[in-house]
């Protein structure tokens, strides 16, 4: 068996699905944040695999930017999480329904 591009893409798809499952079925805010990280990483894997198979390094530069955005997202996400914890004393997303309308 030779490792092909399709294998990497399938692996990335599986990781993305697992991340989506985490976001949709968990209630702990911090676990949801980690699942989002998982989804971002699966997309990074797709970029790197395509960079290798298209012999184009620009896709690797895109991964660099995605990493920066992920870092910013985690910083702001955790800040929101801390202020939610201070105001509500819980991490359960069910308690955060002020914008439900």
């Amino acid at each position, binding site marked *: 068996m030779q490792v092909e591009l399709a294998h990497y893409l*399938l692996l990335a798809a599986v990781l993305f699905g697992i991340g989506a499952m985490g976001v949709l079925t968990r209630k702990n805010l911090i676990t949801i944040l980690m699942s989002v990280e998982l989804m971002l990483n699966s997309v990074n894997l797709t970029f790197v695999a395509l960079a290798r198979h298209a012999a184009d390094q620009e896709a690797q530069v895109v991964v660099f930017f995605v990493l920066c955005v992920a870092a910013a997202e985690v910083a702001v996400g955790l800040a929101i999480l801390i202020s939610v914890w201070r105001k509500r004393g819980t991490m359960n997303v069910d308690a955060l329904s002020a914008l439900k309308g």
Partner: protein
Amino acid sequence: MGLETILFLLLAVGAVLTALLVVTSPSPIGSALYLVGTMFCLAGLYVLLAAPFLAAIQMIVYAGAIIVLLLFVIMLLNLRRIDEVLSKGWRIAGLFVAGLTLFALFMAIVRGSSVLPEMPSIPDDFGKVKELGKILFSKYLYAFEATSVLLLAAMIGAVALVRKEGKEGGKDAS
């Protein structure tokens, strides 16, 4: 089976297993530690895909910074597992949507696999710091500068969000 195939299988199985543990582990600390495993496996795959610089960045930024930040917050707030009382309907709906996403991606890859390119030969310095730096600081220079503004904004935003209200620049702005 060549060495590359064996390594790919090992890392792929490791990544999927740890990812499953991340989303199913009841305690946040367990999730964060399993996420380190996923990042490690992905870094290994990046090396297989001729991206050594990104593999190093992955380990430094994710395992070294983001996961440590997550663990720090988890331990600071003393977060324990919460009661995940998710109604059965919602759980099934969530699994269904995730499965549908997965199925759509699978179909797209399987149907498009005939047009996927074969692995071309690449120069020795593919994915090395020097080559990536050349692209980053020429074609993507403005995007790079915009990234720095983004990080600054995120930093200010994080500080502003966790600042205690009612204290004007207090000493204990924890």
